[in-house]
């Protein structure tokens, strides 16, 4: 499919969603608490089909004979057609409390399969790449509702998402070691032909494990970052927007095991964020997205490869949740993107725009500055 058609199609399906849920843009209730947004990017492309599982799709099991049977526990039911991975217990309870909605078959409009470009695209929100400006940074500049709000990047430098505003600062805990967990797997692979380096790496990891809790510095785990992020957002210093990053989702092999851990870390991280936010949870929307989805078919090494359509999560006390959002395109060969990937039927950017409109009360004109190529949906997304 040509890129142009592809983008057009995303636009077409926007109106479809609007027809299904003809709700007027809700205006954020005039609570005195500032409306907070947390933007979480899952780097490496989370596999949506293994996370928000299309249990009733007639082709799902055939496409994933091993992965579909690799769940250690019962799936957590959502609606009639979808269920959550068993690691996502907290997200499931949020769903039942109407504080979480997954969006299925969603895409940013990025038509290729490179992690770097896909992440840049997701963060910039522009069809022509510019590394100096990101959609969340531009949204901050349009945030008239709370002109004194500040944004925080939980990172060592400001990621693209938050560039182009002077209201942002970056922060990273100094009591954490500097390498995150996901680098070690990648290095194991990188050193596969280098006996010396491989043995040194194993030796180093063993020592580290033995030292374990005794060392004053811990590895940067997502839960620690999420907890710190929650604390900073809850402290009364005008920080109403934060960005988190979480890597390790590129599951080309051993996916069942790896995703069980990744999703469990994600789940406990969200729980920690919620706990630290305290009463601010009620006025917070957390948007969770990844650069693209993965192949609908499992590959030969118990994993999946780079795909297109994926999933995102909208969650938080300010979310009008408890529904599976988006339009399921089906998994038959002719329903797939390029014959191999889940077809994206709604736009990541439009969903984000919807939150910005309803939660931060950005006008259509504001939205067009944030996302020149995407419009907000008319679905009631916030409570």
């Amino acid at each position, binding site marked *: 499919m040509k890129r142009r058609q592809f983008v057009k199609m995303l636009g077409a399906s926007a109106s479809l969603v609007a027809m299904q849920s003809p709700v007027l843009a809700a205006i954020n209730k005039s609570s005195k608490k500032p409306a907070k947004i947390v933007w979480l990017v899952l*780097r*490496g*492309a989370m596999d949506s089909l293994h996370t928000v599982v299309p249990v009733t799709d007639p082709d799902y099991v055939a496409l994933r004979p091993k992965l579909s049977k690799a769940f250690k526990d019962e799936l957590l039911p959502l609606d009639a057609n979808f269920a959550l991975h068993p690691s996502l217990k907290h997200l499931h309870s949020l769903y039942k409390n109407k504080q979480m909605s997954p969006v299925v078959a969603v895409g940013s409009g990025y038509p290729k399969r490179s*992690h*770097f470009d896909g*992440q*840049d695209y997701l963060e910039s929100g522009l069809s022509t790449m510019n*590394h100096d400006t990101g959609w969340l940074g531009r949204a901050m500049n349009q945030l008239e509702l709370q002109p004194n709000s500040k944004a925080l990047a939980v*990172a*060592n*430098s400001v990621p693209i998402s938050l560039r182009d505003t002077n209201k942002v600062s970056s922060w*990273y805990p100094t009591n954490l*070691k*500097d*390498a*995150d967990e*996901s*680098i*070690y797997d*990648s*290095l194991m*692979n*990188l*050193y*596969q*032909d*280098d006996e*010396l*380096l491989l043995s*040194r*790496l194993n*030796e*180093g*990891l063993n*020592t*580290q494990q033995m030292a374990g809790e005794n060392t004053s510095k811990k590895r940067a785990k997502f839960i620690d970052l999420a907890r710190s992020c929650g604390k900073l957002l809850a402290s009364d210093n005008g920080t109403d927007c934060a960005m988190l990053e979480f*890597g*390790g*989702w*590129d599951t080309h092999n051993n996916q069942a095991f790896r995703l069980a851990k990744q999703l469990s870390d994600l789940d406990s991280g969200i729980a920690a964020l919620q706990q630290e936010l305290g009463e601010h949870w009620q006025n917070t929307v957390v948007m969770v997205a990844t650069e693209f989805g993965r192949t609908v078919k499992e590959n030969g090494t118990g994993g999946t490869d780079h795909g297109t359509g994926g999933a995102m999560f909208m969650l938080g006390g300010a979310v009008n949740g408890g529904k599976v959002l988006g339009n399921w395109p089906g998994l038959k060969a002719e329903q797939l993107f390029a014959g191999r990937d889940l077809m994206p039927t709604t736009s990541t950017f439009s969903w984000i725009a919807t939150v910005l409109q309803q939660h931060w009360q950005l006008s259509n004109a504001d939205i067009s500055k944030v996302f020149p190529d995407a419009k907000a949906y008319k679905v009631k997304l916030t409570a």
Partner: protein
Amino acid sequence: MNATTPQAAIAVNRFGLGAKGDELAQANANPKAWLKQQLQPIKLSNSLYTSDYILTELAKYGEARRQAKKSKNAEAEFDKTNKERGKFLQNSYRGLSTDTFVAGLNSNNSVSWRLLDFFSNHFSVSASGPQMTAIASTLEREAIAPNLLGNFEDMLLAVTKHPAMIVYLNNERSFGPNSRIGKKGRGLNENLAREILELHTLGVDGGYQQQDVIELAKGITGWSIANPRKEDTVGFMYRSWGKEPGDRVLLGKAYKQEGMAQGEAMLKDLANHPKTANYVCSKLVKHFISDKPSPDLVNILVATWQKSGGNIKAVMNAMIDSDLAWQAQKQKFKTPREFVMSSLRAVGKKNIKPKELFFTLNTFGQQPMQAGSPAGYSDEQQDWDGANALMSKIDWVSLLARKSKANAEKVMQQTLNLKPSEHTYKSVVRAESRTQALALLLLSPEFLRR
């Protein structure tokens, strides 16, 4: 895809401090010629402290401490001057070492800077104790850099007369037993003489005896430094009243000169001794090319050394010219300093603050001027390739990658000559994020070596 040749990558990474910017492309047409034109004199900022200035200030601090002890509020006053002096010591040490490092980081003639690092380690001094902390970093700037591309003889003389070396190896109070002051009970200190023979010239197996150590030590008695508080000068000072009188015999040769000329003649002969040529050339090959130097390559360098009277530039040109120095396999595992330097150059960093540089190099066990032994830091893989070193590198690189906006693919193209079919190339372009891609590149087997 890869416009550059493997030779270009060898030129910038093995001989230089690591590719920065478009150096790989520059070196591509003629790597050997590119390297040779890099052998340029090193320019260092002259707006920073000199050893003369530092020694003058130290004398002032010494006086202030004495006064403080006598003052009414002795303890507080002493504390205050002590703190001020401590600050001055660290400023000198860290400021100068960082300036040297940053100049190398930005240099377009990084081969010369690698050569400076080599000789700085060859003539290693350590920043131990107040005085050495303050002046250790001046040796490479004042005695080595100006003689870097000249004759080894001149460098050896400049180093041996430099206050940092004299103080470090205790020659300032080494006096002949038969000198005027010797007759009052002062005596010889063999430290500097021994290390000149063992570490700076002939090498430990250079065939010298204990008697030669004593003879050389006597030859350089009186080579001292001034006390700026009492004497109207600063820096190197020859104290004739401490010089051992009479003829000397070193390695079977008689030295009938008087005064400073005697020690100078001894050092010149040592600099031009065949064993020295062999020892220094072996070390050079070991530093630039391989932990196990090829004897053939060493011989080529030695022949050039002897023909040119120990001219370092001529020796370097001979190494660059020899195909033996260009083997495809990377045989050198980067030392921490080399690794940090090449990583920063690769991602286009132009500056690093003293605190960060010292913290980093300290973590890796290679702080500037802290070898703790006149033998300097090891130049062998086994001393730097441990598991803990790797884990520290992973942490450091992860932080660098997270802070850097450099594009991993571009950096890879600008530093390493990798084919798209190679494992590292694939791992980098397929990494799950830009940050991780850059980290993997800098931690790759190819980047850890040169």
